[in-house]
């Protein structure tokens, strides 16, 4: 396996406080124009990650950019593709059939209404999901906005390396201790 697995954003439920700033940051990052204040926002907030609260846990859920993505396979019009190590939705091709919504095991896909232009009263219903803030300089907006550092951009190669190092260090230390004890 080469180091070209898709990256994704993961939430740590032990750190998440459920404030929803990630959702707002996501929605704001995907607006056509820069909006800073609530009052100047003349549109609904449409995030691409969703805070989930159960009695046991609180965390946002978003697209995992699966390697064998069920959404890609389920799409009858090839509107979902793998591109630049991400699973990307081509909204202009989407016909709103909801197959991807059914296929996604994480519930990471929503159907949203999109107006082709500001003046139009017509709208299309299309699938929407995390694009890892593709094209944004500072990486995913949700990660940057989280006040409790509960979100993390997971780079698979680095993650694996990091875990292997951690495991090796731990095992090495254990063996050293064991040897010392055994004399």
């Amino acid at each position: 396996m080469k180091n070209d697995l898709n990256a994704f954003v993961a939430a740590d439920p032990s750190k998440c406080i459920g404030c929803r700033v990630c959702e707002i940051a996501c929605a704001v990052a995907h607006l056509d124009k820069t909006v800073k204040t609530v009052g100047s926002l003349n549109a609904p907030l449409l995030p691409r990650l969703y805070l989930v609260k159960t009695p046991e846990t609180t965390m946002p859920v978003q697209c995992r950019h699966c390697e064998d993505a069920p959404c890609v396979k389920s799409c009858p019009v090839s509107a979902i593709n793998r591109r630049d190590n991400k699973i990307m939705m081509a909204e202009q091709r989407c016909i709103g059939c909801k197959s991807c919504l059914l296929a996604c095991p994480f519930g990471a896909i929503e159907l949203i209404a999109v107006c082709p232009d500001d003046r139009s009263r017509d709208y299309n219903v299309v699938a929407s999901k995390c694009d890892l803030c593709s094209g944004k300089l500072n990486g995913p907006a949700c990660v940057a906005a989280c006040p409790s550092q509960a979100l993390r951009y997971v780079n698979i190669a680095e993650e694996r390396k990091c875990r292997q190092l951690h495991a090796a260090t731990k095992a090495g230390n254990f063996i050293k201790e064991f040897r010392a004890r055994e004399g």
Partner: protein
Amino acid sequence: MKHSLIKIDDELCTGCRRCAAVCPVDAIEGKQGQPQMIHSDKCVMCGQCVQICSGYASLFEEYETPRDQKMRERHMPPAVNEPLFAAYHTGDYPKVKAVLDNQNAYTMVQCAPAVRVAIAEEFGLPLGSLVPGKLAAALRRVGFSRVYDTNFAADLTIMEEGAELVQRLTKGGTLPMFTSCCPAWVTFIETRYPELVKHLSSCKSPQQMAGTMFKTYGAQLDGVTADQVYSVAVMPCTCKKFEAERPEMNSSGYQDVDAVLTTRELAYLIKEAGIDFHSLPEESFDNPLGIYSGAGTIFGVTGGVMEAAIRTAYEMITSKKLDNIELIQVRGSQGRRQIVLDLGTMKLKTVVVSGLKHAVPILENLKKGIADFHFMEVMTCPAGCVSGGGQPKMLLPVDCLASHQRRTASTYQHDAELLVRKSHDNPAIKAIYQEFLGEPLGHKSHKLLHTHYHVSHPDH
């Protein structure tokens, strides 16, 4: 009113408790992950919880209470499209709208210094845009009969508060003296430190001084009676709504300020009237109660009242001209700043505090008899009124600091650009003392511009 001004919608609150962390008086109670409650006896209505809350009504979730009902409960106009957040304040919007729709109403409006450096943000302009001219034009176009300014009353406050400080210093009186412009601070002292109430300046806040002047002097100028005037204040502050309804605030014989709109509520009014804020011309506030100095305008930032007071008090005490009027030492963002001013005969020691929590150790020391200063300015909100609970709310916390800094910078820029920068040099202030008030701390100004703060009991 106090009990219902700031609220948390338990359908929208996720229990992240960031509001509890920002509350300066620990008034927000609840478990992590559960909807929070505001302890109304402790709440000073500063609205900082409203500013930080990001628990919003998601389009992807269903709520028992429909959006239009939530908007009615919040006193918001139906056409507003913005998302609704869990922490909110109820408002005076419907009241003011009804009065403006009545062709026969005689309305006078005042606008706080911090509003002109923030309102444009609600129309997509850059953070901290300075727009006094467009603001005056907008107030005229939404239908106010007289477009006056709180800044004028801030200058008036300096005349009275400066004179009061000089009197306490020279003739004796309770020292140190505390500023009384910030209603959340006054409420805090009344409820938590009743034994220190006597330290508060007896001056009313600029909002209340303006309200009184509108219904007395202003009414007299326009040939109307106090009961005909409907007086509205536009404020960056949520607690100003509470202040306006205090029973002692009726020196004109009527409630001096009938309604208070926050900066955000004024933006609703402008939008609802279909006014294109961007294309508004630059107009000025009406004479004479809309003429102000740079000292009046810096009331909007932490340290501003102190700087304005020193600009006047120095000249009152020393009879010398203060050349270096930009007192950089009192400016800044630290929670506590101190400066010592050489007045020749004495050294005036002053303290500036922003953020109520920073005031507590000072008050505790004062109770123990340890106080090494004469005059203290306290503003409840972190950067002063520019960061008030009624100001435009940032969508993202990362923009909060930038908005405070830019609003502050614009405030100082406005001061620097004004020709008159000391309250006692304001020609309209000179005129009002000559024609109407007499002298600072005189009989008439005492009756109209001062009050007695009292010890309040939560049950009363």
